[in-house]
C-alpha cells in the first residue's frame, strides 16, 4: 500500500483507479425488491470536487463544517467534499422533534465554532429556522442535493498533510458539554490500515452495514474502510435494520458481504426477531468478519447467534469481538483471525479483587469475552494502576492505556482535559512518552485484552471492585418485571455505599414492591458480599441512557444526590439520606393505585 499524504489524496487515487466501479450501494427502506442507489467512484469524486470548490470559494477551508444528514449517499459526498476542501467535517445526527437532539447539536455548533451546515434540501428550511432561533446568524446553510453548487473545475488541491484535521467526532461528553475528538488525516489513514490488518481485509472484499454514519463505528468501519481498500461499501439505514433485522442478513446474502458489524444488542435482535420464513434462501457463508464492539460483548449472544445461523452458512469463527473508541479513531484490538472468539471463565471473587484466576471447582464464575489483540505495528496497549500510574502485570485489572499513530491528538479546545487524558505517563517508564487513558478497565492475559468495565463507574467497597453491570444483571434476573438499572457508589465521609436504582413495571410484578426490594438486597449481599442498603425502584423511563444506549450511571448518581429521582419504593440508609439534597428520596404518589388496578 502506497503512503498517502492525506485521506483526500487516497480518495483521489482510488477514484482514478476504480473509475466507474461502484464505491457505494445504498439499499432503500423499500426492502429487497426496490432498486438500490449506486455511487460510482468517478461520481463521488466529481460531487466532492463540486462541493469542495463551493466551500473554498466561501472561505471555509480550514473551518468546521457541520454535516446533518440522514443515512445515505449524500452524507458521503459531503464528507469527502469537506476533506477535498481542507475543511474539518463535523458529522452529527439530524435533529428530530425530540428536543434533546436539537440541544445536543446546538452545543456542537457552539463548541466546534461551525462555519456552515450542509444538509438535504428537504431539511434546509428546518435547519435555517433552528439556527436562527439559536442565534447562529453567521452560520451558512447549504443544501447539497439540488444539483451542482460550485464548479468542479475550480477546485484546488488544498495540499494537506497528515497532521491536518480531517474531522471532529462528537461522541463523548454530556449533552451540554460535548467533546469533539480531533481526528487528523494521519490518524484516519493509520486506523484504516490497522482495521484492514486486524480483520485481514483486502480490496476484493465487500464491506458494509447499517450503523449510523455520524457514529465512529459506522463512519470509520463501514464508509471509510471500503474507500481505503478501494472496494465497494454496501449500506442501509439503522431504521431499516431495526424495523426488520432480516434486511441485514439479506444484504449479506445478496451482496456477498465479507465484513460488517454492530453492537452486541444487534445480534440479540437477530436471534429474537428473524423468522424461519425470512431465512429461506439466506446464505451467510461469505461472512469473514462480524465485528462485535461498542458495548460489553456477551458470550451468550455469540453462542445463540452462531447456533441460530450456522445452518445458513454462518461460520462462528467469523465473530470478531473488538475494542476501540473515537479517541483512537476506532479500532484498537480485534480477535485473531485464525480462530473464533476467545471465552475465558474466571473466578468471580478473584475478578472482584482485580485479578483473573481460576475457575475453581464449586466457586462462582464469570465468563469474559476477549476483545482480541493489538497489532504491534499499530498500537501499544498497557494496563496501568489508575491511582499510582504504575503498570500492572498480566492477569491484573487496571486502566487500559493506549498509544499509536491512530490515537487522536485530543479533544477540540480542551487543553486541560487533554493533558490528563491524552498526555499520561507511566510511573517509572516516563521515557516511553505519553499515552491515552481510556477510562476503561481491563486485563491483559498474554496479548489478549479483556475489558471488564468503566473506571469511573466501578464501585469499590470493602476492597472489592463491584462492577455495576454485574449487579444490574443479577437484579434483573429476580423478576421479569424489572427493567434497566443503574448501580453506583456514593461516599459518606470515606465510606462507600452501593446504590441500586432499577426500573420496575409495578403492574406486572409477581410480588409487591417492598418484597422485591428486600429480595434484591438479599441477592446482592449473597452474590457480591457487599451491603446493599440503598435500593430505589423507579418507573420505566427513569434510567438515563446515552444516544448509543449506554447506561449513564454517573448522571444517575448526580440525579440521585440532587434529590431529582422519584421512587415507587425506596430503602435508603440514614447516612446516605443525609447526602441527598432536600434530605429524602421523593416518593411517587400513584404507585399504589396502579398496583391495585391490574392486581
Amino acid at each position, binding site marked *: 500500500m502506497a503512503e498517502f499524504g492525506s485521506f483526500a489524496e487516497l480518495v483521489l487515487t482510488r477514484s482514478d483507479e476504480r473509475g466507474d466501479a461502484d464505491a457505494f450501494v445504498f439499499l432503500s427502506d423499500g426492502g429487497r425488491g426496490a432498486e438500490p442507489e449506486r455511487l460510482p467512484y468517478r461520481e463521488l469524486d466529481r460531487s466532492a470536487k463540486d462541493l469542495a470548490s463551493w466551500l473554498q470559494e466561501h472561505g471555509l477551508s480550514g473551518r468546521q463544517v457541520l454535516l446533518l444528514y440522514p443515512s445515505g449517499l449524500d452524507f458521503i459526498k459531503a464528507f469527502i467534499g469537506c476533506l477535498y476542501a481542507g475543511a474539518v467535517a463535523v458529522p452529527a445526527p439530524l435533529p428530530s422533534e425530540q428536543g434533546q437532539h436539537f440541544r445536543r447539536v446546538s452545543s456542537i455548533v457552539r463548541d466546534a465554532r461551525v462555519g456552515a451546515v450542509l444538509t438535504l434540501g428537504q431539511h434546509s428550511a428546518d435547519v435555517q429556522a433552528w439556527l436562527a432561533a439559536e442565534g447562529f446568524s453567521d452560520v451558512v446553510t447549504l443544501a447539497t442535493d439540488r444539483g451542482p453548487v460550485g464548479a468542479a473545475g475550480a477546485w484546488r488541491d488544498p495540499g494537506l498533510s497528515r497532521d491536518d484535521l480531517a474531522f471532529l467526532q462528537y461522541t463523548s461528553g454530556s449533552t451540554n458539554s460535548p467533546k469533539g475528538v480531533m481526528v487528523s488525516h494521519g490518524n484516519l489513514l493509520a486506523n484504516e490500515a490497522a482495521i484492514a490488518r486486524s480483520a485481514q481485509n483486502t480490496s476484493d472484499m465487500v464491506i458494509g452495514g447499517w450503523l449510523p454514519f455520524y457514529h465512529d463505528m459506522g463512519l470509520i468501519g463501514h464508509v471509510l474502510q471500503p474507500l481505503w481498500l478501494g472496494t465497494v461499501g454496501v449500506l442501509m439505514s439503522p431504521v431499516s435494520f431495526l*424495523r*426488520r433485522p432480516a434486511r441485514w442478513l439479506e444484504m449479506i446474502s445478496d451482496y456477498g458481504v465479507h465484513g460488517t458489524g454492530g453492537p452486541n*444488542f444487534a445480534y440479540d*435482535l437477530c436471534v*429474537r426477531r428473524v*423468522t424461519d420464513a425470512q431465512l429461506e434462501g439466506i446464505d451467510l457463508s461469505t461472512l469473514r468478519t462480524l465485528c462485535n464492539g461498542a458495548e460489553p460483548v456477551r458470550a451468550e449472544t455469540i453462542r445463540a447467534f452462531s447456533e441460530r445461523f450456522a445452518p445458513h452458512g454462518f461460520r462462528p469463527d467469523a465473530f470478531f469481538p473488538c475494542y476501540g473508541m473515537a479517541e483512537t479513531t476506532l479500532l484498537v484490538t480485534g480477535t485473531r483471525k485464525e480462530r473464533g472468539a476467545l471465552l475465558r471463565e474466571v473466578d468471580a471473587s478473584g475478578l472482584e479483587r482485580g485479578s483473573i484466576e481460576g475457575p475453581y471447582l464449586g466457586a462462582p464464575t464469570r465468563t469474559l469475552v476477549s476483545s482480541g489483540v493489538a497489532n504491534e505495528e499499530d498500537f501499544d496497549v498497557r494496563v496501568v494502576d489508575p491511582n499510582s500510574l504504575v503498570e500492572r502485570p498480566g492477569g491484573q485489572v487496571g486502566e487500559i492505556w493506549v498509544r499509536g499513530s491512530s490515537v487522536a491528538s485530543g479533544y477540540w479546545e480542551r487543553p486541560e482535559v487533554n493533558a490528563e487524558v491524552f498526555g499520561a505517563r507511566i510511573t517509572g517508564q516516563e521515557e516511553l512518552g505519553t499515552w491515552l487513558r481510556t477510562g476503561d478497565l481491563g486485563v491483559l492475559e498474554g496479548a489478549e485484552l479483556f475489558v471488564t468495565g468503566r473506571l469511573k463507574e466501578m464501585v469499590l467497597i470493602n476492597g472489592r471492585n463491584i462492577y455495576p453491570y454485574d449487579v444490574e444483571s443479577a437484579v434483573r434476573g429476580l423478576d421479569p418485571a424489572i427493567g434497566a438499572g443503574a448501580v453506583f457508589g456514593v461516599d459518606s465521609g470515606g465510606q462507600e455505599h452501593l446504590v441500586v436504582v432499577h*426500573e420496575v*413495571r409495578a403492574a406486572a410484578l409477581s410480588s409487591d414492591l417492598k418484597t422485591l426490594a428486600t429480595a434484591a438486597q438479599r441477592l446482592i449481599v449473597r452474590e457480591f458480599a457487599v451491603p446493599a442498603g440503598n435500593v430505589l425502584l423507579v418507573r420505566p423511563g427513569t434510567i438515563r441512557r446515552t444516544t448509543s444506549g449506554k447506561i449513564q450511571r454517573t448522571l444517575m448518581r448526580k440525579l440521585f444526590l440532587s434529590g431529582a429521582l422519584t421512587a415507587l419504593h425506596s430503602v435508603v440508609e440514614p447516612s446516605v439520606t443525609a447526602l441527598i439534597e432536600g434530605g429524602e428520596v421523593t416518593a411517587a404518589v400513584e404507585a399504589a393505585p396502579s398496583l391495585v388496578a391490574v392486581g
Partner: protein
Amino acid sequence: MSVPATDRPTSTQHTEHSVESLSSWLADRIALYLQRSPSEIAPSVPLAEYGLDSVAALSLCGDIEEDFDLVLEPTVAWDYPTIDALAGHLVEELRDVQSEAR
C-alpha cells in the same frame, strides 16, 4: 437453537381482522420484544410501563409491515400507547386499505 416463538401464521393477509384478533397478535409480538409472556401484557396499560423503547417501537412497525403489508410511522406506538388503542387503529387502517383495493 430454534426459536419457534418467532414463527408466525402465514394466513394473516386473508383473514378478516377484528380488534380481538389484532390485540392477541400485538400482545404476542410485544411480549417477544420485551422477553416476557403475552398474558402479562394488559391491553389497557400503556406500553411504556412495560419498558417499550424506541427499538421495540421500530420492531413493531416492521412486523406490522411484514404481516399486514401496512407501512406505519415509527411514532405509532406512542400515538396509540396501549394494545387496545393500537388494535383499534390497526383495524381502521386495514379497513381503509381494503376499501381502497375494491
